[in-house]
């Protein structure tokens, strides 16, 4: 096991996985919330756009989304999202496009988790909100969404766990995270293959297990009593 750490920069790989997970989770949550608002809102055209987005993205393989992000949006269309003068420009581009792809993809799942949360809020809550004079946006912000998020914690936990494991797809565009290190190690140190797989499985377990347990207990704690 020690040899792996001596030969490869394991910690850097782990750290990259964590960075990808955190940034993607953040953006997916923001984008997914916007999509959910579009889908539950009263504006027909936004309903259509929101549901088209979810249905297209959710049914496209993540590998395709991530590859498309860097090669088509980044390379072919020349959209740059990293600092061009940075000495690590190419690496940064790959990392950011990976975060972009992961966020765009998981936003569809966040949207659906939130929508299931919205469905836990009785219609009467929104009616009461409207009847005291709150507008659509206000009743969403103060009444419906706070309850929807509480009802969506458990399904959001599943999305978070899936997202963390899905960061391994970033290998396809050369982002040096955990599965990239794994591929290298398999090639150069096949003698350590048992240790390698154990190490990586443990690493993911160490992040996802607490998140699962933590969010499940949180979902119980914040559940709205009716």
């Amino acid at each position, binding site marked *: 096991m020690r040899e792996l750490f001596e030969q490869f920069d394991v910690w850097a790989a782990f750290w990259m996985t964590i960075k990808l997970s955190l940034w993607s989770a953040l953006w997916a949550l923001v984008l997914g919330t916007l999509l959910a608002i579009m889908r539950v809102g009263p504006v027909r055209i936004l309903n259509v756009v929101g549901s088209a987005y979810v249905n297209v993205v959710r049914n496209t393989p993540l590998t395709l989304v991530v590859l498309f992000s860097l090669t088509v949006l980044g390379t072919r269309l020349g959209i740059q999202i990293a600092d061009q003068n940075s000495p690590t420009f190419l690496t940064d581009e790959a990392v950011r496009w990976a975060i972009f792809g992961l966020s765009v993809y998981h936003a569809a799942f966040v949207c659906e988790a939130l929508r299931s949360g919205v469905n836990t809020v009785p219609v009467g*809550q929104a*009616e009461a909100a409207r009847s005291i*004079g*709150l507008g659509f946006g206000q009743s969403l912000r103060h009444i419906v969404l706070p*309850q929807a998020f509480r009802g969506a914690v458990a399904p959001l936990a599943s999305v978070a766990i899936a997202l963390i494991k899905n960061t391994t797809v970033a290998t396809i565009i050369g982002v040096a995270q955990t599965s990239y290190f794994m591929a290298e190690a398999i090639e150069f140190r096949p003698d350590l293959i048992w240790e390698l797989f154990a190490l990586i499985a443990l690493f993911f377990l160490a992040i996802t297990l607490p998140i699962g347990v933590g969010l499940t207990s949180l979902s119980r704690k914040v559940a709205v*009593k009716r």
Partner: protein
Amino acid sequence: MAEPLVVLDGVNKYFGDLHVLKDINLTVAPGEVVVVIGPSGSGKSTLCRAINRLETIESGTITIDGEELPQEGKALARLRSDVGMVFQAFNLFAHKTILQNVTLGPMKVRGVKKAGAQQRAKELLERVGVAHQAAKYPAQLSGGQQQRVAIARSLAMDPKIMLFDEPTSALDPEMINEVLDVMVELAESGMTMIVVTHEMGFARKAAHRVVFMADGEIVETAEPEEFFTNPQSERAKDFLGKILTH
């Protein structure tokens, strides 16, 4: 008579093929308490909900304080803030405390400062008799207490009129009176009220007028005493016969 506060003129409403409100005409004066009764499915709840446009109507007009109900949007939200609504299922905001339930509207809709809103909320909770529950959440209160909070929540907006949609129908029998007492007190204070209810005692005690609905139509309108002792229509006689014999 003073300018009417609520005017329904030729209101029709359909649920698909079902004609639930048939050419409804109703005028309510300021300070008047109108009780709407009738068998289930007669359209009385729909009528109540249509007045603050929780139900849309297909034809006719509804006018509140001289202003016709606008389309969904800012103007409607402003108008709704002047129309209190009490629901059968209470519909207190489940994730907010009792105090927050009452202060939310004044703070977010009227722009009242927190301290002022809380002061007023406490007075109102005192008035409906649940002041000591202010820090609790709705699920911790009994049905009767929740409904009284719902009334306080509406009153916090200083409404011109209060709508009650079967406010005691979801309550255990021993809690009905605590809610009716608050409503009677409200009626005596001069509040304009439209009350959909089965509570004949309340109608006798507090109503100026009883509107009897059946099959989506207003069949009969009379003063309570007159209506209960000497109903004119066959439908009303039949209905009263069924509920008053026990």
